[in-house]
């Protein structure tokens, strides 16, 4: 039986050979069968015993992810913000049981967003994020370790992650567990004495199940807890102020120092007989800031000819505002916690996206097995219910609800070697 250590096998064979009557009267086949049956029974007893002692004695092993390298150029343009930059990923197997990965990512931000226009000045920012990761397989279990560090001139973040996934039921079911820890340091440009911390913990549990030859479903849970300075040191809220020319004035936002959120998502994937795939997802979200959100997504992948793949996607997101959010507070310091971040308001967004990819198998250089060139374009429209567009000067609280569209482009080259 594969998976059982050789020493154990030798020991069992020794015991069974001594126990059996090796009389020359038995017909060759029958004697072998008896020996084999007894060994099988003993093996089974050992296997069950070892398993209950917590020693893994499985029959199947997991597979490491493929070696690949990707160079991506990303661009986001919407709501007065432009963010562009590269993302470079490299993954390589080391030996039989390990694979390493490294990622280098940059966001170059130039912003004249609605928040900035109405209460600050345009700025440009540069954020760099680096990650390294290790994937190890041990029989049917895969372990993932990763470390990420991100920095910009007024914000540093680090996070570490550990995850396990295990295949069961003849590999039809995969169970995954994950834990991440993050440490952020919040600064404020122009104020060298400002230094705050924000810590985060993520707990993930996932199940994926193959239902038929053509379908797969996944169920994922994630709980996240944050603690510390959770708001933006530059952002303000507004309150009605008859003494001000505009009719309102600003004060700094004040957030709770903790936040716990729960998300559950269900995903399904189905293979269509003419070679295409359709996928759907639904995610339900709730947190202690009273934000409730739902995400609904649909995707369709359609290969064309031999080398081309088309992707189509639609996503709808809706959320209700945080309980301490208001676009316009009645007076100064009207609540313990105050927020006017549109990210915490009631809004919805819809995305429609298309992707096209071309696969090639180059003759030279010979170390490249295959490569692909891909282009993804997404158009996202944000519609806010209770965040108002303050570029329209009118009676406070009567401004039109804000909305904007954004375009994102991803252009990347992938190689498998």
């Amino acid at each position, binding site marked *: *039986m*594969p998976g059982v250590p050789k020493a154990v096998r030798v020991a069992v064979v020794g015991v069974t050979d001594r126990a059996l009557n090796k009389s020359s009267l038995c017909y060759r*086949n029958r004697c*072998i*069968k008896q020996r*084999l049956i007894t060994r*099988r029974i003993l093996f089974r007893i050992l*296997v*069950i015993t*070892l*398993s*209950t002692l*917590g*020693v*893994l*004695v*499985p*029959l*199947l*092993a997991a*597979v490491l992810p*493929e070696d690949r390298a990707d160079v991506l150029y990303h661009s986001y343009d919407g709501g007065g913000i432009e963010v562009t930059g590269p993302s470079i990923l490299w993954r390589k197997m080391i030996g*039989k049981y390990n694979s390493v990965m490294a990622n280098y990512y940059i966001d170059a931000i130039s912003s004249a967003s609605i928040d900035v226009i109405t209460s600050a000045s345009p700025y440009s920012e540069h954020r760099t994020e680096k990650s390294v990761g290790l994937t190890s397989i041990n*029989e*049917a*279990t895969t372990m993932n370790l990763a470390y990420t560090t991100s920095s910009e001139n007024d914000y540093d973040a680090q996070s570490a992650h550990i995850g*396990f996934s*295990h295949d*069961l*039921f*003849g*590999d039809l079911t995969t*169970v995954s*567990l994950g*834990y991440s820890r993050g440490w952020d340091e919040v600064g404020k440009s122009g104020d060298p004495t400002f230094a705050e911390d924000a810590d985060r*913990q993520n*707990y993930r*549990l996932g199940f994926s199940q193959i239902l038929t030859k053509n379908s797969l479903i996944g169920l994922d*849970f994630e*709980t996240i*807890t944050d603690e510390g300075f959770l708001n933006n040191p530059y952002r303000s809220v507004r309150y009605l102020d008859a003494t001000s020319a505009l009719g309102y004035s600003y004060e700094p936002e004040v957030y709770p120092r903790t936040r*716990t959120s*729960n998300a559950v998502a269900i995903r399904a994937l189905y293979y269509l007989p003419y070679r295409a795939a359709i996928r759907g997802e639904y995610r339900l979200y709730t947190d*202690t800031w009273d934000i409730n959100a739902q995400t609904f997504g649909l995707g369709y992948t359609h290969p064309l000819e031999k080398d081309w793949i088309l992707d189509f996607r639609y996503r709808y997101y809706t959320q209700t505002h945080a309980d301490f959010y208001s676009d316009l507070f009645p007076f100064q310091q009207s609540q313990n916690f105050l927020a006017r971040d549109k990210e915490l308001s009631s809004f919805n967004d819809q995305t429609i996206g298309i992707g096209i990819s071309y696969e090639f198998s180059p003759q030279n250089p010979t170390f490249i097995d295959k490569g692909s060139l891909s282009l993804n374009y997404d158009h996202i429209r944000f519609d806010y219910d209770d965040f108002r567009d303050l570029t329209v000067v009118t009676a406070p609280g009567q401004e039109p609800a804000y909305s904007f569209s954004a375009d994102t482009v991803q252009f990347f080259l992938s190689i498998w070697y």
Partner: protein
Amino acid sequence: MMNMQIVSVRVMALMLGGMMLISSAMAKDMIGPAPDFTLRSMSGENLKLSEFRGDVILINFWASWCGPCRQEMPLLDQLYQRYNPIGFTILGINVEEDSDQAMQLLKEVPVSFPILLDTQNKISKLYNLVGMPSTMIVDRDGNIRYQHFAYLPGYEKKYEEQIKELIRE
């Protein structure tokens, strides 16, 4: 919400423990006489397993979509070239319904041992495959003596040891 954290941690601990307990599941042990079968080979003729009685036979179930299978093929071919003259053969059984992809792969990476086509998966069922690739080594009397349900680099050395042992019998 602390409750939620405790719950999550407990669920995770239980799952990890449970995983260890049940990971020892359930493959039907095929050790014993190898069930006979007849399959069409790539070269067109029908081949029967019992025709090869007297030789040590390595039966390898593979598919073109299976990465480890593709890795294994050239190494199996080496074993075939080395031991075929002294009473060893390999039967490569392809388990795909549509043999086109398999033929395409063999054009790029040819092998010299017979390739049989189990397009209806009758033999795969008969041999109770639990993994891809699956390799069974049959002795000269037609009994399966060794079975492997996976391929990791280094397995071909194990196969070689087992083949040599059975040839010597």
